[in-house]
């Protein structure tokens, strides 16, 4: 429901043809869309044609001599206890079953949505009472409520519909209430109101599009549930009465004779299953189509090659289930005596020519074989083809529907084969066959006219500039604690690969506090996560080496790594509220690392925890350890987080924006605590921040990152005096000071941070740099020493062009 307000931006222009709309593309972007249309076609055709094609006698007439038979040529699925055809009865029950389900769902939807919407606009106290009522009704099993209601209104089809309609309405009322109450309170509705849009426009433009998806999906789910519930009641004998029958009632008869004729129960059961699946797929596909946030995702799927798409898991899986369904549907016609290709062709030709001089068997087996199998194969073919290209997809949707309809009508036609109504049989068969034919011709035409090649998304190639720089970056610090060479984090996305951290070389000396600064998206946090081996999936970390205390952690086994990093490195994260587990006591969270890595327990562990809490100035530590994070204040949580990091006396603490989520006064506390730890325990700290002020306050050295690379490595004391990287210069200029002239606008860096999947060829900062010259657009500048303790990645500083030096 937290949809972006920019709905109208992504909404398709009105003049787009329906099949070009993003809705339709998204609808069909997964096989479920196609399957939904196909199955819906079959269902509708059956529901419409079955009562027309089948006469009452066929369905009701008893034939005691042929009772409880297995499948045969005459009775495809066998006969029931009164000698009636199981398949015909199952098909004949389709319209009634669907009608009951739809009426019950419709009733539940009308009652529920109305009640929910009204509830949302009731005054406070009354609304609470109404909500409470809805909640209570929701807590009870729906079927039990329905059974009770049936007892009141009487056992009949109408009674069942009424009972289910009422029993299901509370859940729909809840959804409607949540939507109505939620949407009205959203920020963009408020802003639309402030902008002076009329109520009708707000409803049409903002509210309806935002709740339509949920309403439609919920309605479809309700229909599926109503189908199940009504047939459950019929099954129990509390629904459809007398000579009428729906699927549920057929199952009741079937269950009694499950041992003799299993198909008697299985045929209507499968019909319910298929209908449920259809509604489920339809809901899934509609939700996809109506959710604008998913449209772009669909587009990214497009950029995969057709081969990938063809063999994608979804296609395989859903095609498999489609095959199964269709196989079941057409199983009866794969009997050996029907497989005579010559006669099939002759019969087909005869039907096409309109000559009705056919024997009953010809229609019964041949027509069915030819037409049904054609329809089935076309539909299956289309199912697969629809993933080859977008252009096919719209066609496939129509064809899927046509074929589904066609298959349905063929299906009915065979039922008439042994009936007296030959004319109707032929008309039905002919209609289906023509539809199939049209579908095939359209398909072939489309195949030949589609000459456009599939365009692929261009793949960015990442060239690590490494090797040479490995030697270059050697800073020969006195006592190096951490040495990193060629650290790169890569994400292989469908649109190409990106490297948010690219070829980082850095050294940290023991006891140093080093700052890492950069705009958001510069890769500083990801660098920290990469050092800690915590990069999220699907990021790939590579490095020449990452040595901590001289040990290369990239070559360690998982077990070694766990022990080594567990005791040598600690991390502190940005938001202490979300970074502490809300369900565990602070004490538990503090002690679990030393318990595992140092095998401490009992009193020793407790004393250690108290010591560390004292280190970060948390008073009443004994009591605090027993509390939960929500009982701490923000600053105290972050100090507890630091205490947690200190538990194993690590040699390196990586603090990722530890002060960003806190008030300015609290920030100072945290900075002080970090400084004390550094001074008293000699812990090396890598402090990541976008706030250069914080860095200057505490760090001795600063690393400036831009677009995944280090662009400058400089002592904080030199920051204001020497020549710097233009980006660093701009960062410093952007910090407002108390003595800045208030009349002048605040300094900001022109342009936008770079797009990682579309980096410029040369220096990434070149487009925003005011000193830019020609070479910057050609090559990426390497990070080079300009002094013993100063590295810069900028041609202006390392190899200045003639005119720049004159300046």
């Amino acid at each position, binding site marked *: 429901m937290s949809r972006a307000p920019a709905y109208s931006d992504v909404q398709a222009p009105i003049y787009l043809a329906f099949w070009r709309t993003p809705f339709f593309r998204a609808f069909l972007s997964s096989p479920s869309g196609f399957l939904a249309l196909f199955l819906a076609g079959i269902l509708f055709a059956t529901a419409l044609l079955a009562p027309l094609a089948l006469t009452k006698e066929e369905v009701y007439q008893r034939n005691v001599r042929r009772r409880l038979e297995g499948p045969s040529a005459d009775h495809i699925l066998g006969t029931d206890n009164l000698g009636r055809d199981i398949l015909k009865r199952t098909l004949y029950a389709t319209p009634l079953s669907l009608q009951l389900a739809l009426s019950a769902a419709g009733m539940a939807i009308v009652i529920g949505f109305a009640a929910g919407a009204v509830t949302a606009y009731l005054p406070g106290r009354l609304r609470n009472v109404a909500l409470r009522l809805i909640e209570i009704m929701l807590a009870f099993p729906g079927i*039990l409520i329905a059974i009770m209601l049936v007892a009141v209104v009487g056992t009949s089809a109408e009674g069942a519909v009424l009972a289910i309609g009422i029993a299901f309405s509370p859940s729909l009322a809840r959804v409607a209430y949540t939507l109505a109450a939620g949407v009205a309170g959203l920020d963009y509705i408020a802003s639309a109101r402030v902008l002076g849009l009329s109520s009708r426009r707000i409803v049409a433009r903002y509210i309806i599009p935002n709740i339509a998806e949920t309403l439609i999906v919920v309605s479809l789910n309700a229909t599926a549930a109503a189908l199940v519930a009504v047939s459950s009641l019929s099954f129990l004998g509390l629904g459809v009465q007398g000579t009428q029958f729906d699927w549920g009632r057929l199952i009741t008869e079937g269950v009694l004779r499950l041992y003799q004729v299993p198909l008697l129960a299985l045929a209507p059961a499968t019909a319910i299953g298929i209908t449920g699946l259809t509604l489920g797929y339809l809901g899934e596909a509609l939700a996809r189509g109506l959710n604008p946030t998913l449209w772009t995702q669909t587009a990214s799927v497009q950029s995969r090659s057709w081969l990938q798409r063809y063999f994608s898991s979804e296609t395989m899986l859903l095609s498999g289930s489609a095959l199964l369904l269709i196989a079941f549907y057409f199983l009866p016609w794969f009997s050996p005596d029907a497989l005579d290709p010559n006669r099939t062709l002759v019969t087909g030709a005869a039907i096409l020519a309109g000559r009705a001089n056919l024997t009953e068997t010809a229609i019964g087996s041949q027509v069915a074989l030819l037409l049904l199998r054609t329809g089935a194969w076309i539909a299956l073919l289309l199912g697969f083809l629809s993933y080859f290209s977008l252009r096919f997809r719209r066609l496939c949707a129509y064809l899927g529907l046509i074929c589904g309809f066609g298959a349905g009508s063929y299906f009915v036609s065979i039922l008439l084969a042994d009936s007296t109504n030959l004319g109707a049989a032929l008309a039905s068969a002919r209609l289906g066959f023509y539809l199939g034919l049209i579908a095939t011709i359209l398909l072939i035409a489309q195949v030949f006219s589609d000459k456009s090649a599939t365009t692929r998304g261009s793949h960015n190639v990442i060239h690590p500039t490494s090797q040479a720089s490995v030697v270059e970056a050697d800073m020969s610090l006195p006592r190096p604690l951490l040495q990193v060479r060629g650290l790169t984090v890569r994400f292989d996305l469908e649109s190409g690969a990106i490297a948010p951290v690219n070829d980082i070389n850095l050294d940290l000396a023991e006891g140093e506090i080093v700052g890492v600064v950069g705009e958001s998206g510069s890769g500083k946090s990801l660098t920290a996560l990469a050092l800690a081996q915590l990069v999220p999936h699907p990021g790939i970390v590579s490095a020449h080496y990452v040595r901590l205390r001289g040990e290369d952690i990239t070559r360690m086994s998982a077990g070694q790594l766990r022990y080594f990093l567990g005791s040598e490195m600690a991390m502190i994260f940005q938001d202490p509220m979300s970074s502490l587990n*809300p369900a565990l006591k602070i004490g538990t969270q503090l002690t679990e690392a030393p318990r595992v890595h140092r095998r401490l327990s009992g009193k020793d562990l407790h004393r250690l925890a108290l010591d560390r809490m004292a280190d970060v100035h948390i008073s009443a530590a004994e009591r605090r350890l027993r509390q939960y994070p929500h009982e701490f204040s923000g600053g105290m949580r972050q100090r507890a987080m630091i205490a947690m990091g200190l538990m194993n006396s690590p040699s390196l603490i990586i603090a990722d924006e530890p002060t960003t989520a806190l008030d300015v006064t609290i920030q100072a506390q945290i900075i002080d605590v970090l400084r004390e730890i550094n001074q008293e325990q000699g812990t090396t700290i890598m402090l990541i921040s976008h706030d250069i002020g914080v860095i200057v306050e505490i760090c001795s050295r600063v690393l400036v990152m831009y677009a995944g690379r280090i662009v400058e490595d400089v002592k904080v004391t030199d920051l204001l005096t020497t020549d710097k990287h233009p980006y660093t210069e701009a960062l410093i200029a952007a910090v407002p000071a108390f003595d800045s002239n208030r009349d002048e606008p605040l300094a900001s860096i022109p342009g936008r941070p770079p797009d990682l999947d579309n980096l410029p060829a040369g220096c990434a900062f070149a487009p925003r740099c005011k000193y830019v010259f020609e070479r910057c657009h050609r090559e990426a500048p390497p990070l080079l020493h300009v002094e013993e303790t100063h590295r810069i990645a900028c041609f202006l500083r390392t190899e200045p062009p003639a005119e720049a030096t004159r300046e």
Partner: protein
Amino acid sequence: MTSSQALQRHSADSGTLARLTSRLGPWPRFLLKRAASLFVVLAMLLALTFLLIHLAPGDPAVRKAGIDASAEQIEFERKALGLDQPLPIQFIRYVQGVARLDFGTSFITKQSVTEILQQRFPRTFQLAGTGLLIVMTVSVPLGILVGALTREGRNRRLEVAFMSLTSTSSALPEFLTATFLAFIFAVTLNWLPVGTTQKSTAIILPAISVSLRPVASLARVVRLETLNVLAQDYIRTARSKRLPTYVIFTRHLLPNVLTAALTIGGLVFAGLLGGTVIVENVFAWPGLGQRVVDAVFNLDYPVIQGIVLYFGVIVVLINTAVDILLALVDPRTLVLSE
């Protein structure tokens, strides 16, 4: 939002109760509110089941006396049922009866409803209990496992398979599952018995039928919650502490996931109970569900009243238990409810 949350919000709004309880500690306050809402819901249940007999078409006295009964007989039955009294008196008598665990006698079998409940409930309890056991032992581990394997968009194939499987099985009504299972395991393979309660294996098929739908829907919720928890910052913190995977899962993930599972546990149980009504009729399992359907056929009102009330009380009690359990597991619930 769950029912318990909504109930809490409601209780927080009602002024008098809040004032009354403001001097108590969080736990007594919480329990008092639960007791109050329990009382209200039970009162509503009583009223609804009482109204059943009056909303229904036809005269219960005629039902009881039989169609060819004389006018005197009908009048006698009406007196016996107390239907000649004004409604409020009837309601008070009904409540008094329920308080004495006297729900009246069946019109048809003349058996007392209390006796029916005593006879039938153990069977339903056996079925629902086994079902609940299956739901809990299957769906929670399954959801966590699939959630862990599909986190951050890993294993797309598994995700699609899981989603298709669970959406298909949650779309299958209980009586279909029951029919299919009976066909496969009883008819075709002849492994398990149906239509009997004599053999100990007879409960297997009904219990699976009744639990398949709740298993599927709960496993989906657990998986979503697992994904949700795994994406939390505190899991990253736990990983940064280099805790062994099993510690991360059992200590940091499980309590949070279980809380979510428990929150919808009440609804799942209600669904399960509804399922037993259907499944009992498929497998001729002699529980309350089978009896209530018989009673509806015969418009045997006291039996319908008694059984619906009984089911209702169980659901209400379970929901209250879930709420209290939730407060024990997750102490934030207590704070939130203030």
